[in-house]
């Protein structure tokens, strides 16, 4: 069967929830071992027009707890969310700060509209820190209840600085007005256990569990650079905690380096108008409109309510975009085994799957009844979220794993160990290709047979990462550092390792094949934090629709979409309800790809919450200030220039003979028609070299066009004129950096 065929009839998932393993034994002993290290009282408050106008600062080293004012300048220039995170981080660090220095911070900020319950996808937080993988700011967008509950306790952001000398829990009680740092010596480490225990421990009764959210990580965050943070919510229907991830860039690693075991927020009971918006009626009306769209159109569009983002697994395969065997290929005959209809049957349907109140898209599908085959929880029955598309592609096709149960198990252990699934997927695929090419072998991996699709070896590498031993320790350094380690050991050719190691700026690529879309090559490598698709996903516009024929067209897309999508992270929105559902008449609009009606919804929600009237230009201006500030922040930290925007060649074109031959018709046609060279009779190695020279030159021209459109110099530095347009020229330190780099 090919992925294109109709979905087979699969039995719906039926699970006896009473058989699920529970983890609250020993809770009282764990609680009894807690010791209060610092307790501070505060006055809980609710936002006014979306803002509390104060943030919370906690130093884990000195145990200092402070309230800081949100200034008008912060609101005017940085809005909230990621903007506030970057602003605080800028003031916390110096150019010499590295991820494990005490001054590095983790900032969690939900944004002024976050927490409204009327519009789907409005409960997001942005997490910002100096990344252990990239040495520059990372921002990660996450659902779960923590951010909104923090906000409804009285704070627009939480700043965590310093390093504790012992494991601690920070408890914020937004009902009683207590902030407590507690020594936590006996806590379990892994997220699915720890979060369940802490939810029960800090809730005053069963109903109160819905008011608790925990932020935590797992064992692998202590032994790798790729640790992520889980943000929980209590799933009343299932009777268990659910996890959403701030995945990218190793923030979980920073968290454990500070010896934070968990953050726990107990917020007030959530009600509809807690942001105290200026125009509640518009929030309600705008939300009802989208709820109706979802109810009437989702089944004929993306089926997000049934499959979540996994709905595109077979779509990506059909368009030759599904990363397979470390991004060598774009499809695989076994994709049907991990296609959306498999997950539709495997995940429980008709239950509550929104990661914040009021989300009728509810895409956080829960796969119940997974009985684990390996690792420390072997034999346990668990609920695992997902897999989302990125997990199915990264842990699945990219590593050649097409067994859905193993894929779920990889997903589960990533979550509970605190490992970013996207990063793990790309680094595991890299190790497997190294194994295929003899760069790695059993001797070098300590006995791991990393053959494509060997899920048991893949899982064992992950267990090693969590235990801090064996080859898992090396893999946990990420692709960027593995390339250096392998080359230093004399394992493989350094250029080949550079070409096939799918990272840029130190961050692993997310799970789309960009080889045949020049615009998407830029959409990945011309990002601020590293190659994550949340800035610009333009493959269809470029490669399939052919809407972006010129460099200027591509540059315009790489100007607009990164700015538009940055805005979600300033306000506290999820991107998915923007474009994974579209109004029935969207096709009749002048720019259907932008979903104009939904853009207007967002403007209306912003105005209705804050009272500030903005238009589309102002929306882009708000984003552009933060986006350019982040670029300059990167420059301040020693990156952020043209040289740092260079992609690995695997993301641009065929590295190997097999890749070339898999698309020979396409590459030969390009050689003849665009390069002006007749490929007939040429050996494949020569054709690869000719294609490479052409494609890299084209990428360089793309950089020129994008930098110009963004108002940057040819070296990628925002110009003084651009700073003045954005109003960032009032910040002397920013001006100094730009001027020092010829901006």
């Amino acid at each position: 069967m090919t992925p294109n065929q109709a979905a087979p009839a699969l039995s719906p998932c039926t699970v006896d929830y009473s058989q699920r393993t529970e983890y609250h034994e020993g809770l009282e002993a764990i609680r009894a071992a807690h010791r209060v290290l610092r307790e501070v009282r505060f006055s809980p408050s609710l936002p006014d027009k979306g803002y509390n106008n104060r943030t919370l600062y906690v130093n884990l080293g000195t145990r200092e707890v402070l309230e800081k004012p949100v200034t008008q300048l912060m609101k005017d220039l940085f809005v909230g969310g990621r903007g506030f995170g970057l602003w605080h981080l800028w003031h916390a660090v110096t150019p010499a700060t590295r991820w494990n220095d005490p001054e590095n911070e983790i900032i969690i900020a939900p944004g002024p509209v976050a927490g409204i319950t009327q519009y789907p996808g409005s409960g997001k937080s942005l997490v910002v820190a100096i990344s252990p993988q990239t040495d520059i700011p990372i921002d990660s967008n996450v659902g779960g209840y923590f951010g909104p509950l923090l906000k409804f306790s009285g704070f627009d952001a939480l700043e965590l600085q310093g390093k504790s000398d012992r494991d601690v829990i920070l408890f914020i009680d937004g009902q009683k007005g207590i902030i407590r740092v507690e020594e936590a010596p006996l806590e379990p480490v892994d997220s699915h256990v720890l979060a369940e225990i802490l939810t029960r421990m800090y809730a005053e009764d069963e109903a109160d569990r819905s008011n608790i959210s925990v932020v935590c990580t797992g064992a692998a965050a202590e032994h790798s650079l790729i640790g992520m943070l889980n943000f929980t919510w209590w799933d009343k229907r299932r009777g268990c905690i659910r996890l959403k991830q701030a995945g990218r860039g190793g923030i979980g690693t920073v968290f454990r380096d500070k010896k934070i075991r968990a953050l726990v927020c107990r917020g007030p009971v959530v009600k509809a108008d807690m942001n105290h918006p200026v125009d509640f009626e518009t929030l309600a009306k705008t939300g009802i409109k989208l709820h109706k769209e979802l109810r009437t159109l989702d089944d004929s569009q993306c089926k997000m309510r049934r499959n979540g983002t996994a709905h595109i697994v077979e779509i990506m395969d059909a368009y030759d975009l599904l990363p397979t065997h470390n991004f060598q290929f774009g499809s695989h005959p076994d994709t049907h085994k991990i296609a959306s209809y498999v997950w539709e049957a495997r995940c429980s349907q008709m239950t509550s799957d929104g990661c914040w109140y009021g989300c009728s898209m509810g895409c956080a599908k829960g796969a119940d009844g997974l009985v684990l085959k390996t690792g420390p929880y072997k034999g346990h029955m668990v609920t695992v979220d997902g897999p989302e598309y990125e997990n199915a592609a990264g842990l699945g096709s990219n590593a050649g794993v097409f067994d859905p149960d193993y894929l779920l198990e990889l997903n589960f252990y990533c979550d509970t160990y605190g490992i970013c699934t996207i990063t793990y997927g790309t680094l595991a695929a890299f190790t497997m290709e190294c194994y295929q090419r003899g760069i790695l072998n059993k001797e070098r991996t300590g006995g791991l047979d990393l053959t494509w699709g060997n899920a048991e070896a893949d899982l064992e590498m992950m267990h090693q990462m969590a235990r801090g031993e064996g080859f898992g320790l090396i893999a946990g350094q990420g692709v960027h550092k593995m390339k250096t380690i392998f080359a230093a050991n004399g394992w493989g050719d350094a250029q080949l390792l550079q070409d096939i190691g799918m990272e840029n700026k130190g961050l692993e690529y997310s799970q789309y094949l960009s080889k045949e879309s020049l615009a998407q090559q830029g959409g990945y490598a011309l990002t601020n934090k590293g190659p994550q698709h949340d800035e610009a996903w333009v493959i269809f516009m470029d490669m399939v629709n052919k809407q972006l024929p010129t460099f200027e067209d591509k540059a315009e897309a790489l100007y607009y979409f990164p700015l538009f999508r940055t805005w979600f992270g300033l306000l506290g929105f999820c991107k998915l309800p923007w474009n994974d559902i579209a109004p029935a008449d969207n096709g009749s609009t002048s720019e259907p790809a932008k979903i104009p009606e939904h853009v207007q919804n967002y403007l209306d929600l912003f105005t209705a919450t804050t009272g500030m009237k903005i238009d589309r230009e102002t929306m882009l201006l708000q984003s552009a200030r933060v986006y350019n500030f982040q670029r300059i922040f990167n420059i301040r930290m020693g990156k952020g220039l043209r040289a740092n925007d260079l992609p690995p060649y695997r993301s641009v074109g065929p590295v190997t003979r097999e890749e070339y031959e898999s698309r020979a018709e396409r590459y030969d046609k390009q050689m003849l028609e665009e390069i002006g060279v007749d490929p007939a009779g040429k050996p494949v190695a020569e054709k690869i070299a000719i294609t490479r020279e052409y494609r890299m030159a084209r990428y360089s021209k793309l950089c020129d066009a994008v930098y110009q459109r963004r108002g940057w110099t040819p070296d990628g530095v925002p110009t003084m004129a651009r700073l003045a347009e954005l109003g960032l020229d009032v910040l002397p330190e920013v001006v100094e950096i730009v001027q020092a780099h010829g901006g």
Partner: protein
Amino acid sequence: MIQVNGDPLQWTPGMTVRGVLKAKNYQFKMLVVSIDGAQVQRADYDTALIPDGAVVQVLHLISGG
């Protein structure tokens, strides 16, 4: 011969939008289809005939995580 998103495709008598989508293996659901600039509604994909020489645009909306 017709043009679909700028690429040539062999025309056959009675060719419909659905036929073009199948021929091109276009499986994504979020599409905006037009024939010579005139938009075709999704409900008409099975019946809307494509004339020889037509310029067909199959606009795929943005997807991806």
